[in-house]
């Protein structure tokens, strides 16, 4: 901290214990008979995580192959689960996570239809994530948004439609950034840019 060349030299950092989390212990994966054949019933899962990238190792590396698989087969995904996927992404500038500097906030994650109302695995679920960047810096906001989108696209089943936006008024060029992040073609092209890919994979390294 304190380096003057940061755009925001002194962000508010929350301690990990202050971050929202589930009250019950996490990580209990149900392995009942219901989920026994899920790898057959949802055969596309395995590659959905790499659909944006011809080199899957960049994104899924050693980490959460198993986690990705079980997401779809557990109980319905809720806002807390989305938050958990995103909060551990590193800030591109500071050695803190997006959760710690409240760029990602549980209250700004919305799922529709809500978890209880879903049935058909083909029916679409919208995930809306409003980000609150700490700085008024366009390219950084775009990079953070891109990392959030990549993280969710890799982790969520293919019927999830991801909408990543800058929270109203939190960023000077909201519309411009939002439009870029919503443009599938631009996102796909950006992820073929080695420099950007490097920055994002570094940001995602902490998502274990």
């Amino acid at each position, binding site marked *: 901290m304190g380096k003057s060349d940061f755009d925001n030299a002194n962000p508010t950092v929350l301690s990990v214990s202050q971050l929202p989390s589930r009250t019950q212990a996490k990580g209990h994966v149900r392995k009942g008979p219901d989920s026994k054949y899920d790898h057959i019933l949802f055969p*596309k899962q395995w*590659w959905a995580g790499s*659909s*944006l990238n*011809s080199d899957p190792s960049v994104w899924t590396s050693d980490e959460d192959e198993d986690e990705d698989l079980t997401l779809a087969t557990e109980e319905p995904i809720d806002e807390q689960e989305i938050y958990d996927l995103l909060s551990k992404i590193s800030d591109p500038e500071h050695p803190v996570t997006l959760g710690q500097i409240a760029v990602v906030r549980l209250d700004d994650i919305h799922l529709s239809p809500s978890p209880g109302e879903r049935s*058909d*695995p*083909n*029916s*679409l679920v919208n995930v809306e994530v409003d980000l609150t960047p700490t700085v008024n810096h366009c390219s950084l906001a775009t990079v953070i948004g891109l990392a959030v989108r990549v993280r969710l696209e890799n982790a969520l*089943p*293919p*019927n999830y*439609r991801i909408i990543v936006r800058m929270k109203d008024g939190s960023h000077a060029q909201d519309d411009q950034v939002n*439009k870029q992040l*919503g*443009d*599938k*073609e*631009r996102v*796909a*092209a950006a992820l*073929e840019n080695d420099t950007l890919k490097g920055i994002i994979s570094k940001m995602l390294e902490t998502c274990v």
Partner: protein
Amino acid sequence: MATETSTPATATTAEITPLPAFSPDLYQRAWASIPHPTLPLIATCHAHSVTIFSLSTLSKHSVLSGGHTRSVRTAAWQPPRGGKNPSKETKRLRLVTGSFDTTAGVWTWDQGRREERLEREVRLQSGQEDTKEEEEEEDEWELTLVLEGHENEVKSVSYSPSGQYLATCSRDKSVWIWEDVGNPNPSEEDEEVDEDEWETVAVLQEHDGDVKAVAWCPDVPGRKSKYAPARRYGDDVLASASYDNTVRLWREDGDGEWVCVAVLEGHEGTVWGVSWEQKPREGDRFPRLLSWGADERIRVWSLKEPEEEEEHQGGEGGGNNPWGFGVPNTMRRSLKEEWECTAVLPKVHKGDVYSVAWSNETGLLASVGSDGVLALYQETTKAEEDVEMTNGDAPTTPSAGGWKVLTTVKSAHGPYEINHITWCKRYDAGSERKSEEEMLVTTGDDGVVKPWQVRIQ
């Protein structure tokens, strides 16, 4: 509303049923599948390559790979030469690819050379064993030229109807027009002079955002009819769609300068694509244009009839314009065309509309988008509209602007987004009218290329 009274369609119901998907699955996002204008081939762009499928066998015909370092976004077949006479058709195939690596690639498949090689192999095999068969399979397509110039990803490529021009567009906000100077008489078969030589004839930079798509007006009678704009410019018309929410139309002004003749404004988001009406219109009226985009809408645009335009043709003076708004220098008064939005299709999609296909046989429209829905629309006749007006019951299908929804298919690619749709002819064994019956082909993020049978009653 300029409703086409010529539409013969009295179809009331339509049924879309899936046919077996092309094999193999590509298992990665596929962006688009472009059918050859006359041959039973369709080219699917995915990752850094293009897979050509045979429409007869519904399986892989050949692959173009190794030419691009980033994703191939789109492709265009060179229009067949020798006009409509298939016997004069060249044995040479050409496909142009547009890639995120900023280039467009010109690929050539030389059937003549392939046959020579086969003959040679047969001769060799009669004498000694030959094991080269396997490797030659992949060698059939040759990247013969790379068109460089764009600063960012190339998003779309399009051949003019005669094959004389190629248009490319990019995230760098520009549209480039290239002329095939190695092939001076594209309408005549003369392979001796057919060389890969292209010249840049225009760089159009009036869009304020990525140019997402380009499309040339087809060579239908209406293009040169009495309704077409004054003779002094060339017949070719190019449409471009952009991230700046507009569509622009471009023409050559007779002095070799390409100028913007119209700006079509109405979409409230990125315009993902444009498509011209292929089916000739009654009275040889000028073809209409479709545009669609991120605002979930599909719009139909029509050229204003010349007699209407005449009323506005007051002072032919240069800087003085009667509407009181600024007209850029490049849109000189005399070149401006009046286009108006004559229909907005009934809203079906919840999310970006990525692709719409306009049948040149039936005039039906089909659309796909991020919501995974495939929708089929038909233009309503005047009579039908009157019936709906007087009928007390609410119409069973949503209707707006002279078009109605015939049917929709939900989750057409399961939970995946659908990036492209096209009409093409059926050549597979299941068709009762091979090379005549039309089908739809959709291309999705699941890497599946799916044909669909369309039955209308």
